[in-house]
């Protein structure tokens, strides 16, 4: 089975301030802030979990869903 698509990486080097968005209708984003050592560890940790293979029981469940969709 093909590996499922992974979420886009959100790495960046800029620091976006909360304050910049204050008073703005724009959503406040934290994206691209985590560029320090802590951010790197967090990304490494999360990427590792994302990359772990899916257990068979979950893949089988999806297959059952697919069959049900096809039988509709």
């Amino acid at each position, binding site marked *: 089975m093909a590996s499922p698509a992974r979420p886009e990486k959100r790495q960046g080097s800029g620091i976006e301030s*909360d304050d910049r968005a204050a008073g703005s209708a724009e*959503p406040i984003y934290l994206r691209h802030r985590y560029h320090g050592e*802590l951010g790197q560890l967090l990304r490494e940790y999360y990427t*590792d979990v994302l990359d772990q293979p899916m257990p068979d029981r979950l893949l089988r*469940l999806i297959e059952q869903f697919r069959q049900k969709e096809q039988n509709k």
Partner: protein
Amino acid sequence: MTEPSPFCFADELVVAMPSLRAFAVALSGNVTTANDLVQETLLKAWSHQNLFQPGTNFKAWLFTILRNTYYSQYRRSRREVLDTGKIADGRCVSPNQPSHMDMIEFKTALQALPVDQREALILVGAEGYSYEEAASITGCAIGTVKSRVNRARVRLARTLEMVNVDELGADWSSRAVVGKLQR
């Protein structure tokens, strides 16, 4: 002009599964529990797919289901087991790599965070959700999410003895918080 492809529920579940599982691992601290959580989430999503509003964020909808399942069942029944060793040592880095110990320490520190702070940090810092999106998923105010993220980062920095504020990659408000702590 091509028409948008029809929404295939099972396909969308497959796409979201790795993130769901990663979030479940971060929440529960246990791989087996995380797999159970994802399985229940998939089943609930499938049986309630009529409740999903097309055009809205499907993955965020799944995250909400998973989170609610965790809080209503797993955490209450105290099935949460901190099994950082198994998770931590899974596949992250080879023991020979210099960063191996750093990662083990990081995972231990992450799992030691209060779960509300941990989930906020994962949603915003790892999944890349905005404060607003994370607030929607967790059912709390944006300010609460911001506060939890900041507290999580400060606590991690303390635990990991990151004295330099820059190591946090912090925003202005986090710098202010850390600055107060360092005085």
